């Protein structure tokens, strides 16, 4: 696969609801109740039940991996968590992922991820590097 700086690798919107959060809690083992209980979230001053940061990070890499050749080797992947994704009990939340090529050298390509919820960036410095 050829990588050119600025190319869009993938773009996708993922709809999350409370079931998504419970499913991720079970799969990951992270049962912090701020991810499924409104009363607990409110008691620690949060604006609502939040998606796990690691769920958002996982969704972003899923969008990239699905667009690459299946044998592509991932070298590293890192993010900073800046804003929470609030998942409304009725309406859920839509997380939007845009993956573009940010840098290329002889050995690797850096894929930059813009991950937004409600027009706000929720992950910064989200970068996944693959072997070329």
């Amino acid at each position: 696969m050829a990588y050119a700086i600025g190319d869009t690798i993938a773009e996708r919107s993922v709809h999350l609801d409370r079931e998504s959060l419970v499913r991720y809690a079970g799969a990951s083992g992270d049962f912090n109740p701020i991810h499924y209980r409104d009363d607990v979230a409110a008691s620690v001053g949060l604006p609502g039940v939040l998606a796990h940061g690691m769920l958002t990070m996982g969704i972003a890499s899923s969008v990239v991996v699905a667009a690459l050749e299946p044998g592509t080797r991932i070298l590293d992947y890192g993010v900073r968590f800046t804003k929470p994704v609030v998942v409304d009990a009725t309406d859920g939340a839509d997380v939007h992922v845009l993956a573009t090529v940010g840098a290329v050298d002889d050995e690797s390509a850096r894929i930059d991820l813009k991950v937004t919820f409600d027009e706000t960036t929720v992950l910064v410095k989200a970068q996944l590097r693959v072997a070329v």
Partner: protein
Amino acid sequence: MNPELVGREFPPTPPYLVGREKVREFARAVFADAPQHTDVEAARAAGFADVVAPPTFAMVIQDQTLQQLLALDDSGIVLARTIHAEQRFTYSRPIVAGDELVGQLKVTGIRTMGGNALITSEAEITDVDGAHVVTATSVLLVGEGE
């Protein structure tokens, strides 16, 4: 926050056997719909021994190591005031079903800002032969107590 945590190393976690159905369950939970995560034939055709775990699956092992840190009597870390600030994975190879993995945690840095503290730790995840698989680095922000 206890500054003497820096440099502290923890014992390796018990071996974690990565199950095929666990990989499929995790893949579904993170909307990972590439076939190599769920279809053994597709994974083998792509050069893997079995279904491939999504990149963030390493957090399952990392979490076991962080539980050791949180369980310390002298850490000064209160979970209710702790926020996940940064996460990074550096891979030698992907995790596939059938792997037996061990994690070993090391606290590499503590930085204080006002009453808050940023604690950086590295979980080195290896297979049963001791070969490196992935290093999971996390930064936790621990808020000021009352």
